């Protein structure tokens, strides 16, 4: 297709690796724009199976390919078997569509979905033959940009990127490309390009912000250069309906996670759970209208041929017109074998009723709910507005309706947690199990299962808990024992999120720019695919931190005074710090805060600061 087509070098490797269909392109919906003067490659820092269904990349892929003169392609991190062969054969990282070396593109865009994929970002850059750090790249290299959920503390990975977009990309991506194209035409230098990019709202150019430290090495804030703005405030789309959901996305050949047509029905969630970064940084709530959801769901199914459509969001049951949407979809899809799925359910009877509406007779898969904490006191601390009565009533309804398994999510290590709260998890599960059995006909009671998933709370940037200490590893193990002792055994399947993984997540989530040295050291020592349990090694990370002189426990396990400068202090999601502090104080008083999309404004300041407002089709209930 192009002179640099790497197919002749890739094909001989395909018979020696697993699932070669990941690397051959040609999927339905893949775009092949040939007459482009500007080429972008969008990359996901994990394998095709994990990254293919990413909705953000899907949106950008469509937008860029619809831009005159621009082509966008995809690239993923190959699985370890192919990486090994590529390194042995000197085959560089390639895009799927034209099999062009990634280093030949004008723009490389990498989404940063999760803390433990940062070593994969380095693996991508290295396989592409690109210098890892922005400071080592020059005009001969593509512009390397990033974005995604991790950018609300971008510091640990900031030096690897030329620019990062904070927030939503629908409008900003076109602006960034336009600036880059213009700078190419005028022959501007890379520094001039960076300054231009930094003028775009929401664009963070790390090299223009220098972290400063006092004589004792304590971080005291960043200094911006060349008039780069402080803070960098996130981009946000005012109206979701202004951007139609991609209805002809790529349909993979191989089995991938979330292998279904997904439509984003709303963005943002203002339930106000104080531990939840997504709930803070993706504000305000903006719903897609019922008409648009139904139209695009049907159009997407027709274009892709999928037999499942998922209505995605942070809290789909909150959509004010969900019932209408589900009724219309059920009617239109009757007899086609197409199912509708809801990824997240609230703990209430309405959610169960909605699940009933779409589940037919099967009730095969279980329902998932997240009470998060075992006692009412602690649920009030985190502002999870769910009572035990709600949970029991919801589970009863689900088992009466024919479900035989539910999954419950809990966290340990939440601020103010006591041993009584920890033991409360098992006690709550016990009562849930009793309620589930009571609601099940006696002959079927043996098949009742409660899945319980326990993770360790990791304080995140941009939340009311961003100053909190994460509990240490020994304490996690002690509290896990407490949970185990309090948990009924029969009928319960207990799962843990690995304590060591949570610790590293905590360091990454709130570390400063110096952590980038540790990421690079760990990667050089062989860390990659850290999110895959069998490849994760805390020892490798511990020695990486030691090698670069960082105390990871000081980052994760220490409570920070409110007046201590935070490494992400120059990045703003629009939520004011005074709101975060107020919410933290209310947490300590076990006082809850209502959802502003249901009632009145609670003063997080996002709407005024970003010039947007809550968009709902009807009244939320």
């Amino acid at each position, binding site marked *: 297709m192009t002179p640099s087509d790497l197919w002749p070098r890739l094909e001989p490797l395909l018979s020696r690796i697993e699932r070669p269909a990941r690397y051959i392109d040609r999927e339905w919906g893949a775009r092949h724009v040939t007459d482009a003067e500007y080429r972008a490659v969008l990359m996901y820092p994990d394998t095709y199976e994990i990254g293919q269904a990413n909705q953000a990349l899907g949106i950008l892929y469509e937008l860029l390919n619809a831009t005159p003169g621009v082509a966008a392609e995809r690239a993923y991190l190959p699985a370890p078997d192919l990486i090994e062969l590529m390194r042995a054969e000197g085959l560089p990282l390639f895009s799927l569509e034209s099999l062009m070396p990634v280093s030949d593109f004008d723009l490389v865009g990498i989404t940063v979905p999760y803390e433990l994929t940062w070593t994969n970002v380095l693996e991508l850059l290295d396989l592409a033959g690109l210098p890892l750090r922005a400071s080592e790249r020059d005009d001969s290299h593509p512009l390397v940009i990033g974005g995604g959920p991790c950018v609300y503390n971008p510091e640990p990975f900031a030096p690897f990127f030329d620019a990062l977009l904070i927030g939503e990309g629908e409008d900003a991506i076109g602006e960034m490309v336009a600036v880059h194209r213009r700078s190419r035409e005028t022959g501007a230098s890379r520094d001039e390009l960076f300054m231009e990019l930094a003028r775009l709202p929401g664009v963070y150019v790390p090299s223009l912000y220098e972290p400063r430290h006092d004589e004792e090495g304590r971080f005291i804030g960043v200094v911006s250069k060349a008039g780069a703005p402080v803070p960098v405030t996130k981009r946000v789309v005012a109206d979701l309906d202004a951007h139609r959901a991609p209805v002809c996305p790529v349909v993979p050949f191989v089995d991938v996670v979330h292998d279904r047509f997904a439509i984003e029905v709303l963005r943002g969630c203002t339930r106000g759970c104080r531990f939840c970064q997504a709930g803070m940084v993706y504000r305000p709530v903006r719903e897609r209208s019922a008409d648009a959801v139904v139209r695009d769901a049907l159009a997407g199914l*027709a274009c892709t041929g999928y037999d499942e459509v998922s209505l995605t969001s942070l809290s789909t049951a909150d959509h004010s017109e969900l019932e209408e949407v589900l009724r219309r979809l059920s009617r239109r899809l009757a007899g086609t074998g197409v199912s509708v799925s809801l990824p997240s359910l609230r703990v209430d009877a309405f959610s169960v009723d909605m699940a009933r509406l779409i589940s037919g007779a099967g009730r095969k898969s279980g329902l998932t709910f997240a009470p998060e904490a075992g006692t009412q006191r602690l649920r009030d601390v985190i502002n999870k507005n769910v009572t035990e009565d709600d949970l029991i009533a919801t589970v009863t309804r689900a088992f009466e309706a024919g479900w035989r398994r539910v999954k419950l999510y809990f966290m340990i290590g939440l601020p103010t947690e006591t041993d009584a709260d920890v033991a409360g998890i098992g006690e709550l599960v016990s009562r849930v199990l009793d309620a589930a059995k009571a609601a099940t006909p006696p002959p079927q009671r043996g098949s009742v299962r409660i899945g319980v998933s326990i993770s360790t709370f990791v304080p995140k940037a941009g939340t009311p808990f961003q100053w909190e200490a994460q509990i240490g590893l020994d304490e996690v193990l002690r509290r896990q024992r407490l949970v185990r002792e309090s948990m009924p055994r029969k009928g319960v399947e207990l799962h843990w999120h690995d304590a060591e993984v949570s610790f590293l997540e905590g360091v990454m989530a709130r570390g400063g720019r110096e952590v980038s040295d540790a990421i690079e050291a760990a990667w050089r020592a062989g860390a990659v695919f850290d999110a895959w349990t069998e490849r994760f090694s805390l020892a490798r990370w511990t020695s990486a931190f030691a090698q670069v002189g960082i105390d990871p426990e000081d980052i994760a396990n220490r409570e920070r005074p409110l007046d201590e400068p935070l490494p992400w202090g120059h990045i703003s999601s629009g939520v004011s710090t005074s709101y975060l502090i107020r919410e933290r104080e209310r947490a300590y008083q076990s006082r809850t805060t209502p959802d502003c999309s249901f009632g009145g404004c609670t003063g997080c300041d996002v709407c005024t600061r970003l010039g947007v407002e809550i968009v709902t089709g009807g009244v939320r209930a």
Partner: protein
Amino acid sequence: MTPGEYRLRVCYGKTGRLRYLSHLEVVHALERVVRRAGLPFAITQGFSPHMKMAFGPALPVGTAGEREYLDVWLTRYTEAAEVLAAMKRVSPDELAPHEARYVADGERSLTAALTIGTYRVEVDGKEIEETQARTALLELLEGGELVTERKGKIKVFDLTRCVPKDLRVTGRDGGVDIELAVRMGPEGSLRPELLVRRALPPAALQAAAVRTTRTDTLIEEAEGVWSRPM
């Protein structure tokens, strides 16, 4: 057997890069083609309803197929040519249907009926010479047996039964092409590529690329009498 259902047989190719699809991936991709084409497909009854569709013998990852078959049951009679055109519009070029015809609902299943596969194995390699390749292959066949081991399971193929016709070796610039027929069955089918790899000296194959294509999938009416299923 179901009244009001029409069994449509479709012949399709799995070619080019899509030779690297697994059988399961082909099945999923073609189900999605049927949905995209908006065909009035029938749905199986039962606990987990799915599209009523059946496939011929599976092709391994990496092996192309020029005449592969599937049956799909439709609930409304639509001209086969119309169905074919609708499917073509929504198929990747390298997994496209090229023939469609209704068959009697009582006909044997594709897997039961299609027991013969004809293959072309293209071997690239400067050191591989036609006569030598032919002699090596014939010698292997005369041995009468081929033993394979895969994931600890040992299989013995009776070559006189598995390779029912004389094979043909044709030399060309930069390699040889081998054409042969293989008898397939529920007990497992001999992979032609394996036969070739066993016959040719390992040194010659080291740098060589081997591409296998199933050129036809056939019904064996009687010993040596083969026909297409549509």
